[in-house]
């Protein structure tokens, strides 16, 4: 589904990612883990065109997408959430989620100004689908709230709803449960499992190891911009390099 080949990203002279290569198989959940500053978010940003990569390639469904504009990558079927929530605060919850369907709205400004019947019909469909997604995340009673006044947990779920409403082929989640309590984490975990069962391909960056062990089919470990291990959760857990990356850091900070 997604193949990274020798992806490098430098900030100034500082390498944030060097020679990262791995594949994300279709229909599986890939977890990307690593200590703070390992380059996980940078990697997601490079894949989604938020940051330009320095070199290397990213193949998605056979298309070379490295350094393509964000909106084009989104149109190819990659959708994402952000580490620090990026909702549109003044838009309603419903509008936030409907923005996730931008690619399917696909009509010109002039058409939109004339508001032809077929457009109204399509808008209604988009709205229905958004309502469905919101219902799935149990947010139906807050659809007209401005997103900014939601509680943190609700905001996280709105962002998830916004990311999946367009039925993306690949969903990139940057720390979906960061800052949530145990109960909320379990709920999001269940929802992610449902998504996998529905055939979505997921890649998530996560620090919550319980969640990673529970739902990931494949774990990729990054450390200082390098990919140091790939495998199932159990394989990775026993890998001495991984232990060193995590424990070494703990010794240093202790």
């Amino acid at each position, binding site marked *: 589904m997604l193949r990274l080949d020798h992806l490098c990203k430098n900030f100034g002279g500082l390498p944030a990612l060097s020679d990262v290569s791995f594949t994300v198989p279709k229909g599986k959940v890939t977890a990307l883990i690593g200590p703070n500053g390992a380059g996980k978010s940078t990697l997601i940003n490079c894949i989604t065109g938020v940051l330009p990569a320095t070199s290397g390639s990213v193949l998605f469904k056979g298309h070379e997408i490295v350094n393509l504009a964000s909106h084009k990558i989104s149109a190819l079927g990659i959708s994402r959430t952000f580490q620090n929530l990026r909702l549109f605060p003044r838009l309603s919850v419903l509008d936030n989620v409907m923005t996730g369907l*931008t690619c399917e709205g696909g009509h010109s400004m002039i058409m939109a100004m004339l508001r032809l019947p077929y457009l109204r019909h399509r808008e209604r469909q988009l709205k229905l689908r958004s309502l469905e997604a919101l219902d799935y995340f149990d947010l139906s009673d807050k659809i007209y709230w401005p997103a900014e006044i939601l509680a943190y947990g609700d905001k996280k779920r709105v962002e998830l709803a916004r990311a999946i409403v367009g039925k993306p082929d690949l969903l990139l989640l940057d720390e979906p449960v960061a800052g949530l309590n145990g109960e909320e984490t379990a709920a999001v975990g269940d929802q992610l499992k449902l998504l996998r069962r529905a055939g979505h391909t997921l890649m998530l960056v996560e620090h919550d190891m319980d969640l990673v062990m529970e739902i990931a089919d494949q774990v990729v470990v990054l450390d200082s911009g390098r990919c140091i291990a790939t495998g199932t959760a159990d394989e990775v857990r026993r890998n001495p390099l991984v232990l060193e990356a995590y424990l070494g850091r703990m010794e240093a900070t202790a």
Partner: protein
Amino acid sequence: MVVMLSTLLMLFPLFEDNPYTLGVTNLIAINTIVVLGLNLFIGYAGQISLGHAAFFGLGAYGSAITTGTYGLPPWPAMLLVAMAVGCIALFVGIPVLRLSGHYLAMATLGFNFVVHSVLLEWDTLTGGPSGFSGIPYLAFGDFSFDDEVRLHYLLWSFTMICLLLCLNLVRSGVGRGLSALAEDETAAAALGVNTRLAKIKIFVLSAVMASLAGSLFAHCYSFISPDSFGIFTSTDMVIMVVIGGMGSIWGSLFGAGLITLLPEWIGVFENYKDFVHGGILVLVLMFLPQGLISGLKDMVTVRLALHKQKGKQKDAAT
């Protein structure tokens, strides 16, 4: 609401036939068209332009020169000029819209200075500082729009059509994309909004609307001078957008109306117009940064949502 307002406007000249009053309301109509376009650009797409009087002026002088000097019929001239101004906006917009914030404000301001100077200095074509007179009235056959009542119907039809088109636009996916890009450009792009193109398109659209308003302005007064298209006109228009409400189509009408009427209501304002405008702007920005209409609307939606939730919690408790 559109129907109600249209009916009111239709009836208005029946009981108000003072040409001076109608002249003022006609000016509101023209300003509203510019402010609608500018509000799409500032209020919805979250950009800033301090140069829209330039497009307004180009529209006015474009129509004046093509019809007054070269004798083209006004209607096609108006369309041609609007298209030409659209092209200029595209040409200006492609490099300038890479900027944002203060830089964008300065760049558009600079553009306004350039256009204003050209209008002022190229006197063989524009008549220079003494202005351009003898612009023909708009007409359908023998029916010429040459008095205030006729102009009232003409201008307000244009305004209502623009209002309707803008309302449609902001209710569509395109409008949603614009609001999204105003709030968070990165997130909007990640969700599939082509942010660069969207900004350019809306800039061109607002320029075309300003140009149409300019053409109407020229044909309505049959005399124009560069003074009407300086940077203070631009800032007045931004003030209209801000006071009416950023991201509120109806707010545009309100803002244009209020700021155009203020000097008429209170004579003292005539001389201290800029002070009063500045003062109002500061007050609005301090207390309702989203503008009067949008600010109040936001307050109401938030209150309603919180109120509902409290009600629910009470239900759950009992």
